[in-house]
C-alpha cells in the first residue's frame, strides 16, 4: 500500500506557490477584508478543487506566507479568502489592490464531513470571524437542502458592525426553513435582532439532539461555553465538530509548528470532533 500523496488536484501546488490575481476586494468589518482570487494558470485553476473546511497557504510576495481557511462552497462559488489583518503578512495583504498578485499553495487538510452527514439535522454555531470557515459548509449544505433535516445557524458578534458576511446573512434570513438566530452581545441602536451571547441562543433555538451534528467555531471562551450547553442539551461529543487554527509554516506535515497533542492540524485536521479535541490534551 502506498501512502504517498496521490491526487489529480494540481499537485504542483503543494510546494510552489501558484500566482493568483486579486480580482475584487470587499470590506467586511473592521480589519477584515474579502479577496476574490483567480489562479493565473488556467490548467491548474481547472483542476483546483476544494472541500469545505480545508485551508490554503497564501503567499504575500515580499512579506511571507500564512495559512487561511476557505470560505467558498466547493460548488458554484467564487474562490475567495477572508482575512483579518493581525500580523506582518496579513497587514501586507491588506495593502494590496485589485490586480495585484498573491501565491497559493493547497488546498490542505481534511475538511468538514459532507457525505457522512446527509440526512441529519445540522446546527452551526459561530462567533465573530468564526463564521469564515463555517461559511463554506453552510453554503454547501444550503445548496443541497433536500439532503438535510433542520438547518440552524446561531451566529453572534460584539455589535451589528462586527457581523461577517452581512450580505450573505441578509439572503439567509429570507430562506424559508433556514432557522437563523443572529445575535449581538449587548443592545445597540437600530438593532432589531436577538441580543445576548450565542450559547444562550441554543436553548431558545430548541435544537434537535438525535441524528444531529453541530459545527462550532469561534474564540476559545465562546467555544467552551457553547460546547457545555450543547452537551447539556444532549448532543454527544462526536457529533460536535470544530476547526482549529495553529501557527503554520509548511501546510504539508513537515515543519511541525501546528502540532497539537499527537496530531498535526495541517494534515490530521484542521477539522476535529470534540471527542478528538478532548484527547489532544492541549489548549485549543
Amino acid at each position: 500500500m502506498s501512502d504517498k500523496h496521490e491526487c489529480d488536484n494540481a499537485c504542483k501546488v503543494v510546494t510552489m506557490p501558484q500566482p493568483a490575481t486579486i480580482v475584487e476586494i470587499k470590506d467586511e468589518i473592521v480589519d477584515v477584508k474579502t479577496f476574490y482570487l483567480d489562479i493565473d494558470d488556467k490548467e491548474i485553476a481547472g483542476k483546483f478543487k476544494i472541500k469545505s473546511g480545508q485551508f490554503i497557504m497564501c503567499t504575500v510576495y515580499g512579506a511571507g506566507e500564512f495559512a487561511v481557511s476557505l470560505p467558498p462552497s466547493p460548488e458554484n462559488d467564487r474562490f475567495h479568502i477572508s482575512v483579518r489583518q493581525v500580523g506582518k503578512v496579513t497587514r501586507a495583504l491588506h495593502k494590496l489592490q485589485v490586480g495585484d498578485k498573491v501565491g497559493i499553495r493547497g488546498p490542505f487538510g481534511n475538511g468538514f464531513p459532507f457525505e457522512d452527514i446527509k440526512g441529519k439535522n445540522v446546527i452551526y454555531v459561530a462567533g465573530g470571524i468564526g463564521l469564515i470557515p463555517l461559511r463554506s459548509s453552510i453554503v454547501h449544505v444550503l445548496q443541497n437542502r433536500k439532503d438535510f433535516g433542520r438547518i440552524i445557524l446561531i451566529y453572534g458578534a460584539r455589535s451589528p458592525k462586527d457581523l461577517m458576511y452581512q450580505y450573505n446573512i441578509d439572503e439567509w434570513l429570507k430562506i424559508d426553513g433556514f432557522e437563523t438566530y443572529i445575535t449581538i452581545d449587548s443592545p445597540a441602536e437600530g438593532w432589531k435582532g436577538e441580543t445576548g451571547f450565542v450559547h444562550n441562543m441554543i436553548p431558545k433555538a430548541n435544537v434537535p439532539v438525535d441524528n444531529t451534528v453541530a459545527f462550532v467555531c469561534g474564540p476559545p471562551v465562546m467555544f467552551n461555553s457553547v460546547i457545555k450547553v450543547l452537551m447539556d442539551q444532549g448532543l454527544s461529543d462526536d457529533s460536535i465538530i470544530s476547526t482549529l487554527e495553529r501557527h503554520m509554516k509548511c501546510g504539508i506535515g513537515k515543519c511541525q509548528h501546528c502540532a497539537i497533542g499527537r496530531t498535526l492540524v495541517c494534515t490530521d485536521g484542521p477539522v476535529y470532533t470534540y471527542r478528538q479535541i478532548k484527547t489532544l490534551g492541549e489548549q485549543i
Partner: protein
Amino acid sequence: MYLIKKSEVGKIAKALAADYQLYGPYVDGDSGQVMFDRVDDPGVIDLSAAIPAIPPKNVVFPQMECVYKYKYDRQKKSVETTMVNSVKPKALFGLRSCDLTGMRVLDRFFMGQEFVDEFYLNNRKRMFIVTNTCVTPFAQCFCACTDSGPAAKEGYDLNLTEIGDSYLVEAGSDRGKELAEKLGLEKADDGYAAKKKAVVDKALDSFTGFATENKAWVSRVTNRVTTGFIKDEVWEYIGDQCFECGACTFVCPSCSCFNIEDVNQADGTTERLRSWDSCSYEGYSKMAGDHNPRKPVEDRRNKRFFCKLSYSQSKKYLRPGCVGCGRCAWVCPGNIGLPNVVTYIRREITK
C-alpha cells in the same frame, strides 16, 4: 565482503571525491573539535575520530537553505519563481550508525508520508553513504539502548569495520558493490562475518554508565511516554530545568522542525529560506495576534520527548526518534539531556 588495509582506506574516499561532493569526519585544527563537513582533500578524513560534535544532518537538511526565489514586479504584475537545485550529488564517508539511523528517521519523515518534501529529496537522492562501525563506544553513547548501533544494519552503500590492521568492507547496495569491484578490493572469506560479530559484541560489552544501567529502562520509559501515563509533575520538573536554548534540537540527528522566512534581497528578489527551528522556543507556536496555546515551558518540553521516546511517532519515523548519540546530554546547560529524562521518569515509575 571485501578487505582493505587501514593505510589504504583513503582510496575509497578519493574515488568518491571524483564523482561526489565529499563529506567526512575530521579534527578541526583551531578548535580541536571533531567536525563532519565538506572536505576538499580526502586525506584529512580521520576515521578514528570521536563522533562529530554536530551530526551530519545539515548535509541532507541544511541549517539554513534557500528553497526557492521569487521576484514580484508590482508594476508589471508578473511573478517569477525559481527553485534552487544543487547539482552535484554528495558522498558521506565515515558516518556513524547513530547518525545514519537519524538520517533514516528523517528520510521516512520527509519522503515516506503523504507529502514528499521536494527540497529534502533533492539533497538526499543520489547520496552515497559509507558507514563506520564503532569498535569502542564513546563516553556519552547509548545506542545499545536505542537499537541504533554500534554497527549499521542497513541503509548504507558501504560499511567499514575495523578488524586488526584492515577494514572489512560490506556492500549494502549495488552501487556500493560496483565501487568495491571497481577498486579491485580483496575478497574477504566467510570467516570475517564471525570476526565482525566478535568486534561488535566486544563494543557492546564495553558500554559504561547510563547505557549499561538503563538498557531495559529506555524501552520501559518509551512505553510509558507512548501510553501517556506520566504525571504532569514529572514534565514540570523537567521543564523547570529547561533554559529554552534549543541546543538539544540542533545537535539531534532526528530533529526536523523548521521555520520558513521570506527575505527580501537588494536586487528585488525574495528568497524563501528554511532554517532549523526548535520546539523549546516560546515563539514556536505563537500565532499572529499573540495567542500562544503552548506557553508554559513544560508543555513544549514534553513534546520533544514524545518525538524522541514514543511509539506514537512510528507512523512518522518507523521508530522512536532517539538514536542514542548522547549529544543532547553533552550540550544541555540544564542537565536534561535524554539520559536524564529517562532517569527522572524511571525514578517516578519506581517510586
